[in-house]
């Protein structure tokens, strides 16, 4: 490539470009030495250059106020606040939660389960319960249970299990008159669910302010 470039210019042009101009050549040795001396004189008056990759000295941090007592306390306070906010957020299940309750249908079940004699009337009593699927979606959910009239609002009885799509689900048989439910998220946050209505399904988004 260089040869092709060179072919396009006269040899004397290339020669003139490669060598210093005659004017500067004639004053070479002593003049160039004087120039170099002048450069070094200016360089010696300059402060020593610092290496950008070197860590900042503690004195500079101090000058910036981060190592002073007030600066240190401010840093620690900010750190603790960040950790607390994160923990709070996790305990409360993070941002918005979406709850859904599907009424899948009815199921006929015995009223008593082994409590009565086999030939008793009670053994033959049947009841019709609703099969309801509770679904919960939301970030940072580590555990979820559903509470309501059907389990006497006791936590830990009806747990939701995590599905493959990051939703938490539980199918529960509930009496027809049980309409009020709530979810307990991460054993801390209680999210009121939409009351079941005769409709086929119900869902709502719960803002994280609850």
């Amino acid at each position, binding site marked *: *490539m*260089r040869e092709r*470039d*060179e072919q*396009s*210019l*006269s040899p*004397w*042009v*290339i020669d*003139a*470009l*490669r*060598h*210093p*101009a*005659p*004017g*500067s050549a004639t004053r070479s040795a002593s003049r*160039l030495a004087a*120039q*170099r001396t*002048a*450069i*070094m004189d*200016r*360089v*010696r008056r*300059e402060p*020593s*250059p*610092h*290496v*950008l*990759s070197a860590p900042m000295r503690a004195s500079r941090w101090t000058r910036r106020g981060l190592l002073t007592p007030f600066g240190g306390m401010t840093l620690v306070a900010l750190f603790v606040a960040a950790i607390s906010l994160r923990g709070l957020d996790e305990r409360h299940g993070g941002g918005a939660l979406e709850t859904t309750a599907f009424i899948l249908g009815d199921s006929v079940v015995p009223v008593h389960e082994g409590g009565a004699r086999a030939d008793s009337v009670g053994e033959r009593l049947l009841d019709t319960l609703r099969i309801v699927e509770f679904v919960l979606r939301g970030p940072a959910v580590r555990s979820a249970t559903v509470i309501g009239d059907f389990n006497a609002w006791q936590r830990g009885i009806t747990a939701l299990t995590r599905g493959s799509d990051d939703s938490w689900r539980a199918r529960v048989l509930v009496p027809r008159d049980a309409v009020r439910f709530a979810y307990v998220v991460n054993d801390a946050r209680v999210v009121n669910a939409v009351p079941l209505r005769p409709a086929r399904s119900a869902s709502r988004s719960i803002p994280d302010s609850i």
Partner: protein
Amino acid sequence: MLAGDAEAFSLLVDRHHARCLRVATHLLGDADDAEDAVQEAFVRAYRHLGSYRERDRFGAWLLRVVVNRCRTNAARARRWSGPDATSIASLPLPESLHDDAVEAIERAARHDELALALSRLGAAHREAIVLRFSDELSYDEMATITGVGVSALKMRVQRACAQLRALLSEHLHA
């Protein structure tokens, strides 16, 4: 070196000064301006040694500083004019000259012709042709120094060669 040892830096000044001065002279077209630019470039290079990475060639890094300094000085001065074409013709020629003296005058005249032609090139073309031929850099090195792509530099060199050829032949015929 990066600790800022001025004496070590003086070795680099000795080693690269002439080369930087040659490039700056071709770029600026004036020896005095070139001296100023090179001196400023060396001082700036020393000041910013912290930004020099040892994996780079120091010469290429320094040349980048010089080229940038020349660009800045040329833009600031806005007085790029090149040598006066009439000065060549008005050179007083003694009656009797030794061969060496005649050759020196001819060489000086050619340098002036070349400087005049270079001055008529655009700044980008002048920079490309000077780096290519004056410092014999590869296109990759030129790209590192100028921040321009290799293909663009090749195009600039080709165009600059064509323009320079035309300018020199025009001047010689004139």
